[in-house]
């Protein structure tokens, strides 16, 4: 998993630590949703875990809740207000919400764009 994070950091040209923090932050928020909303999620979560569409475990309302929670958590952690809204949200092929890794990529790109 460390290797995957290093590759992601290199591909996105962002510090490795930032990648790790964003992925952990998404996983933390999924776990919080599990606790507070009874979300049925896999026990083990990592960047390859499918979130939405296909094998994903989120329905559309849980997706909205998670994305908004991640936006707020990113602002608290990095001090940057990012919008993770995307016109391709409901598209299975292009959605940045396919997996935890895809959502992390999207968040990191938005963080980088300021």
């Amino acid at each position, binding site marked *: 998993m460390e290797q995957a994070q290093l590759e992601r950091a290199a591909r996105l040209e962002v510090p490795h630590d930032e990648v790790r923090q964003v992925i952990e932050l998404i996983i933390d928020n999924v776990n919080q949703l599990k606790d507070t909303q009874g979300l049925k999620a896999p026990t083990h979560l990592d960047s390859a875990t499918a979130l939405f569409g296909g094998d994903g475990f989120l329905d559309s*309302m849980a*997706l909205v809740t998670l994305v908004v929670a991640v936006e707020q958590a990113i602002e608290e952690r990095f001090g940057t207000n990012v919008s*993770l809204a995307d016109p391709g*949200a409901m598209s299975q092929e292009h959605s940045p919400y396919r997996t935890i890794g895809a959502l992390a990529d999207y968040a990191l790109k938005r963080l980088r764009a300021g």
Partner: protein
Amino acid sequence: MDAPVTLITGTRIGIGRHLAEHYLRAGHRVVGCSRAPADWTREGYEHYETDVADEKGVKAMFSEIRRSYGHLDHLINNAGIASMNHSLLTPTSTVSAILATNVVGTFLLSREAAKLMKRKGYGRIVNFSSVAVPLKLAGEAAYVASKSAVVALTQVLGRELAEFGITVNCVGPGPLATNLIRSVPKQTIDRLLSLQAIPRMGTFDDVANTVDFFLRPESGFVTGQTIYLGGL
């Protein structure tokens, strides 16, 4: 009497193309437009690559229509875009694009068409709304807002343009087999259809029939109205 001149927006595909072919068969001279080039052509049809929200491009198209035909009888504001997304996941760029095509486009085309129609003291403008408006469809906030604005525009323009002999009406189709709904899940479509008095998908001919009624010279006492198809 000269063949009527009918301008239809969004004629590359879907309802727009169907209406263009329908009115060509009825003997109209049809002018169409879309952002991308049309991959079809017929005798009597002229196509412009024009974005309905681009004022400069739209004005240039109307100058050409005035030069080529001298007048305009009908405008069908069919061009439209949609986006299925929860409001909390919708970027403002998507909202702006939807409002630009669906609202600004309808306004701009109607304004320029009315200037041409006014010369003859006769004109018919038909706008496009959607059953998503009366259904207050969740997941389509920007689209529904834009199509509500089209209903409001229809009502106000109907009043403003009445004195020039121009009627302005609106058709609101339900789900039709077009690109606009290709990404909408089947169960969503089935649920929508179940809310209609007549629970079936609409057809292009259902839409054409309603537009036919609004375009008829005998419909000169009908303005500012919206007809939703399927019974809502």
